[in-house]
C-alpha cells in the first residue's frame, strides 16, 4: 500500500504537534501548570475530556490515509518489470477504514432498520415453489449481512441480541474493574498509601486529578461501546442508509470531518485574530483605525452569503481543474479545507475584537512602561509581555469556538454549501436523512445516530470549555 497525506491530514497532525508543544510549554510554566491542574480537578471537565479523547482518537485513526495495492490482475503482462510498478486503488482508505472493513464492505441494497434481519421496504421476489413453479411474491427480503449468521432461524434474533449485550456488559464491567484497580494501585504507589486509602481518595475526589470522573466516563463509554462493538460484527446496529451503507460506519467517519472543521478553522483564524488584535491594540492610531474598519466591515457581511459565494467559487475551480486531483478523496479534502478557510476568515473578528480590547488595557500597565523605559523593542514587548498575558483568552476562545464550528458545519452542509457531498459528515448525513423523515414508515435512524454522536461531541466540548474557562480566567480564579 502507498501512504497518502491529504492536506487536512497534514494540518491535523500539525495540530497534534502544536498541542504537544503547548503541553510541554505548560509543564514548564508554573502558572499554566497550575491552571491545567485546576482543569484536572474539575470533574465535569475531566469526564468530558475523556469522552473527547475517544472522539479525537477515532478522528486521528481516520487521518492516516493510504491507497491499498490492487491484486495483480491475471490479464496483465507477467514480467519482472511490471512487478515493480505496483498498481494502487483509486480509493483512498484510512486506518479506521481498515479497522472497520467489515462495516465498510457489508453493504445492503437499501434502507434497513437498526438490528434488522430484513430490509425496510418490500420487494418483488421470485420464489421457486415446492412444485417447481416460479412464483412472484412481495415481501421484505432477507438482508445480505444483517443477522446472516442466524441462518433460517430469524426468530432467534432477540435472544441473540440480548445474549450479546449481556456478554458485552459483563466484559465491560471486567475491563472497567481492572482499569480502576490499576488506577488505584498506581495512586497507592505514587502516594505511598494502602490500596484502601487510594480507593477512598479516588472516590472522595481527594487526589489531584478528578480520577473518579474519568473512571465514571470510561465506565459509561465501555457500557455503551462494547455492546455496540459486539452487535456490529453481525448486525447493522444503527441500520443502513439509502444505498445500504452501515450508519454506524458513517457516524464514525463523520467524527473526523467535525474535528477538522472545528480545529483547522481555529488554526486558520488564530494567527490572523491574534496578530491583528494585538497590533491594533498596541500601536493604536491609524493602524487601529484600519484594522477596526476591516473587521467591522467583515462582520457586517452576512456570513452565510459570504460562505456560499466562496464555496461555490471553489466548486467551480475544482470542477474546471480535474487534473489537479489524483483521487476523489483529494478533491473532497480540498473542498473541506476551503470550507475551513472561509469559516476561519469570517470568524476571526470576534476574537480579534476581544484581543484588541485586552491589549489596550495591558499596554497601559506599568510593566509594559517599565519595558519601554528599558528601550525594549515593540516586537519584543508584544512577544514577551503582551502575548503571554493574552494566552488565557486565546485558549478559552479556542475551546469555545470548537463546538460552534462543528454545529456550523452541520448547518452549512444541510443548506448545501458545506462539505463535498461524497464526504461523510454529520451535516451530509442529516441532509440525506431529512427527506426520508416524511416516508411512511419513517426512516429515523440516520438522523438519530448523527444527532446522538454530534450531541455527545458538542456537549463534551462545551463542558470542557467551561472547565477551561473557569481555570484560566484570572477574574474567576482570583489573583493568580
Amino acid at each position, binding site marked *: 500500500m502507498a501512504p497518502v497525506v491529504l492536506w487536512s491530514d497534514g494540518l491535523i497532525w500539525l495540530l497534534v504537534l502544536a498541542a504537544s508543544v503547548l503541553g510541554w510549554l505548560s509543564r514548564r510554566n508554573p502558572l499554566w501548570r497550575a491552571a491545567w491542574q485546576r482543569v484536572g480537578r474539575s470533574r465535569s471537565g475531566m469526564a468530558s475530556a475523556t469522552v473527547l479523547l475517544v472522539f479525537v482518537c477515532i478522528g486521528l485513526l481516520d487521518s492516516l490515509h493510504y491507497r491499498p495495492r490492487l491484486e495483480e490482475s491475471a490479464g496483465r503482462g507477467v514480467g519482472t518489470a511490471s512487478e515493480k510498478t505496483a498498481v494502487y486503488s483509486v480509493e483512498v482508505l484510512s486506518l479506521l477504514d481498515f479497522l472497520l472493513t467489515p462495516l465498510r464492505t457489508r453493504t445492503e441494497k437499501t434502507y434497513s432498520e437498526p438490528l434488522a434481519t430484513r430490509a425496510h421496504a418490500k420487494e418483488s421476489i421470485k420464489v421457486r415453489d415446492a412444485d417447481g413453479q416460479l412464483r412472484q411474491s412481495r415481501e421484505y427480503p432477507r438482508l445480505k449481512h444483517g443477522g446472516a449468521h442466524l441462518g433460517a432461524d430469524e426468530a432467534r434474533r432477540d435472544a441473540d441480541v440480548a445474549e450479546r449485550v449481556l456478554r458485552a456488559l459483563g466484559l465491560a464491567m471486567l475491563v472497567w474493574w481492572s482499569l480502576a484497580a490499576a488506577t488505584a494501585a498506581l495512586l497507592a504507589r505514587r502516594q505511598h498509601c494502602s490500596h484502601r486509602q487510594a480507593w477512598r481518595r479516588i472516590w472522595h475526589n481527594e487526589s489531584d486529578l478528578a480520577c473518579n470522573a474519568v473512571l465514571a466516563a470510561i465506565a459509561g463509554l465501555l457500557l455503551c461501546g462494547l455492546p455496540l462493538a459486539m452487535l456490529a460484527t453481525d448486525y447493522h446496529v444503527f441500520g443502513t442508509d439509502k444505498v445500504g451503507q452501515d450508519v454506524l460506519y458513517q457516524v464514525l467517519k463523520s467524527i473526523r470531518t467535525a474535528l477538522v472543521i472545528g480545529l483547522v478553522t481555529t488554526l486558520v483564524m488564530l494567527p490572523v485574530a491574534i496578530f491583528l488584535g494585538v497590533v491594533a491594540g498596541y500601536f493604536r492610531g491609524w493602524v487601529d483605525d484600519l484594522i477596526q474598519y476591516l473587521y467591522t466591515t467583515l462582520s457586517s457581511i452576512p456570513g452565510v452569503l459570504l460562505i456560499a459565494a466562496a464555496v461555490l467559487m471553489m466548486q467551480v475551480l475544482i470542477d474546471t481543474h480535474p487534473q489537479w486531483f489524483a483521487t476523489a478523496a483529494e478533491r473532497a479534502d480540498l473542498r473541506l479545507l476551503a470550507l475551513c478557510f472561509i469559516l476561519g476568515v469570517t470568524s476571526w473578528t470576534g476574537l480579534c475584537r476581544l484581543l484588541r480590547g485586552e491589549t489596550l488595557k495591558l499596554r497601559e500597565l*506599568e510593566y509594559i512602561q517599565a519595558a519601554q523605559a528599558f528601550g525594549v523593542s515593540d516586537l519584543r514587548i508584544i512577544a514577551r*509581555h503582551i502575548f503571554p498575558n493574552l494566552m488565557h483568552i486565546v485558549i478559552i476562545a479556542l475551546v469555545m469556538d470548537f463546538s460552534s464550528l462543528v454545529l456550523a458545519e452541520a448547518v452549512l452542509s444541510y443548506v448545501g454549501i458545506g462539505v463535498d457531498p461524497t464526504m461523510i459528515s454529520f451535516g451530509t448525513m442529516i441532509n440525506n436523512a431529512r427527506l426520508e423523515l416524511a416516508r411512511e414508515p419513517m426512516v429515523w435512524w440516520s438522523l438519530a445516530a448523527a444527532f446522538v454522536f454530534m450531541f455527545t461531541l458538542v456537549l463534551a466540548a462545551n463542558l470542557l470549555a467551561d472547565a477551561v474557562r473557569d481555570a484560566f480566567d484570572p477574574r474567576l480564579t482570583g489573583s493568580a
Partner: protein
Amino acid sequence: MSQEATVNEEHLLEVRDLSIAFASGRSLLAAVDGIGFAVAAGETLALLGESGCGKSATALALLRLLPTAGRILGGEVSFAGRDLLRLPEAEMRGVRGGGMAMIFQEPATSLNPVLTVGRQLAEVLERHLGLAGQAIRARSLELLTAVGIADPERRLGEYPFQLSGGMKQRVMIAVALAGQPRLLIADEPTTALDVTIQAQILELLRRVQAERAMGMLLITHDLGVVAQMATRVGVMYAGEIVEEAPRAAFFASPRHPYTHKLFAALPDLARRGGRLETIPGQVPPLSAMPGGCRFAARCAHAWDLCRQEAPQWREVGPDHRVRCHLDDEPERVRSTGSEAVIARATGPLAAPALLAVADLCVHFPIRRGILQRPVGYVRAVDGVSLELARGRTLALVGESGCGKTTVGKAILQLLPTSGGSVRLLGQELVGQSRRELRPLRRRLQMIFQDPFASLNPRMAIGEIIGEGMRALAMPGTHPQRPERAAAIAAVLQQVGLDPAAAGRYPHEFSGGQRQRIAIARALAVQPDLVICDEPTSALDVSVQAQILNLLSDLQVDLGLAYLFITHNFAVVDHLAHAVAVMYLGRIVEQGTVDEVLRSPQHPYTRALLSAVPSPRLEAQPEFIRLPGEIPSPANPPGGCHFHPRCRQASAPCRERYPGTSTLSATHTVRCHLYP
C-alpha cells in the same frame, strides 16, 4: 477621658467573640479570631491595622455582607439590643442602611454609574423612611446640603461621572446618612482621596457624627486619621485585636510591641535621613497562624511563653487593655536614627546637575469631530523646570491630577513632550530617536506605584530583571547566561532578596517584596537617576519603612539621584533634599526641604501641609480649609491657577500668572504675594 466611661454604659454595638473564616477548597481559613469590641452612641472606635489583618472582613460581617466564601463561625453581634447574627434576612435588610450604614473606600465604584444621585438617595429614603414624591426631593436636598454640596438642586439630577472624587464621597456619605442610621461604618473612607479632600471629608464626618450623635466604626491604616477622628482605638493584627485604648492613652503610652513598631515605622522629622524602624517579616498567612502570640515571630521582645501560649486580655490602665505577655511596659525601642543621620549637604548645589529640565511641556490634544481636529489642549505639564544633582533626592509633591506623574514619564521619554528640554548629563533627550535614546536609557530608570501592576505576572523574576540588561546590552554583562545570572543574583542581594528568587514568579511575593523586585529591575542597568513614582503609596506602613530604608541605603552606596514623586509629606520630609510643589501642571514653590516644609510661602503649600493629619496628638496644625478641588487642566482658571481656592487672592491674581519670586538662593515661589 472620664466622660467616655459614662458614655460606655450604654453600648450601641457590642461585638463579642466574633470569628470569621474564609472557605478555601475544603478547609476554612480563620480571618478574624474571636474579636470583641463595643461602640457607644456618639463615639468613634477606630480599628487600626495593616492590610490583611481582617478589619474589612469584620465590618462586612457586622452587616452580614461577607463574600460567598466568608463564614461567620461564631460570636455575637448585638446592635441596639438585637443579635444581628440571628436576625432573619428580611429584618436584616432593615438594619442595613436603617440601623447602620457603611461608607466604602473607593467612591468611584460605590455609586451606581447609571443612576442619578437623586435616584440613589431616593432608594434609601423609600426603603427606610417610607417617603414618597415631593418629600423625597425635599429630604434629598436637605441631605446634600448637610454634606456640603453646593447647588444641590442641580446635583440631584446628575450622574456620578459628572462629580469629582471628593464630591462622590460626599454623596456616598449622604446616601449612608439617608436612612438615619445610628451607627456609621467607614471603611477607609479617605484612602483614595487627596490630602486636602481627605481633610474636608474627615471634617464632614466629624460634624455629622456630632450633630446626629451617631456611633462610628472607622476602619483605617492611617495613624494620622486615627489621631484626628477616634475616641477609642483598637489595633488589629492577624485577625485579633491586640490593643484597645482611649485615644489619649493610645498616643501617649501605647503598650503592645506591635503598636510601638507602627509608630516607629512612620517617617517623620525626628528620624530624618536616618533609618526607619521596620517590623521584620510579614503578617503570618491565614493558613499558617502560629499557636502562641501571633506577633511573636516578629516581636523583638518575644520570649518562650509568647510562642507557646496566646496571651489573654490584660487591663493596663483605665479602659486600656492589651494582649501581651510582657508584664512591664516594654522599654521604648528608639530608632537608631539619631546616630545614623547622614550628613546631608544643605547648601546650594555646587555639583553640576545630573538632570536639568527646562520649561518642560506636555500637552494632550483634545480631538473632536470627524476629522479629529484638536480643539484644545490638556496642559498636563506646562513649563516645569527642575535641576537634580548626583546623589540627591528631589521630591515632586502635589495632589492627584496636578501632572507630577506626567513629568516623570516625560523625563523618561515615555510620553511625547510638547516643548522644553530634558538634559541628562548635558545630553538632550527631547526629540531623540529611539536608537539614540537607548544608551541614555540605562542612566535613568523608573520605579512604579503599584507593585502588583509593574511586574509581568507571566515572567520569572530573573527574566524580569534580566530584560533591561539584555535590551540595553549592558557593558560587562555579555549575553552569556552565567554572567547575567550572577549579575541578577547580585542585584537581588542588593535589594535584600534571596538570589534563589530569580526562578520564581511575581505572584509568590508580597507587596513589599514585589517593590524590591521592581527596584532591583531598575538597579540592574546601573542607572544614575531613578524616578520613583509613589513607590510606597500602595504599601503598608511597616513595609513602606523597609522600602524607604532600602532607597536611602542605595543612595548612599551607589550615589543614586532620585526624583521622588509623591503626595505623602512624611515621606518627603524623611527622604528628600529638595522639594518642588506642583499645582495644575506648574511648579508653584521650590526649595530645600527645610525651606518648603518649615516655612512654606505659597498659600497652596501651606494649605497642603496643614491638611496632612499628623499621627501625634500634640502637633495638630491649624487646618487651612481649601475649598473646592483641583480644576481640570483642560480648562485652568485664568490668572493664577490657584486663585479660586486661595484665601489671599487679590485682583492681580485673577489677571495674570505670577512670575517667579526668588526668596533665597534655593527657594523660589510663584505667587503675587511675593514681589
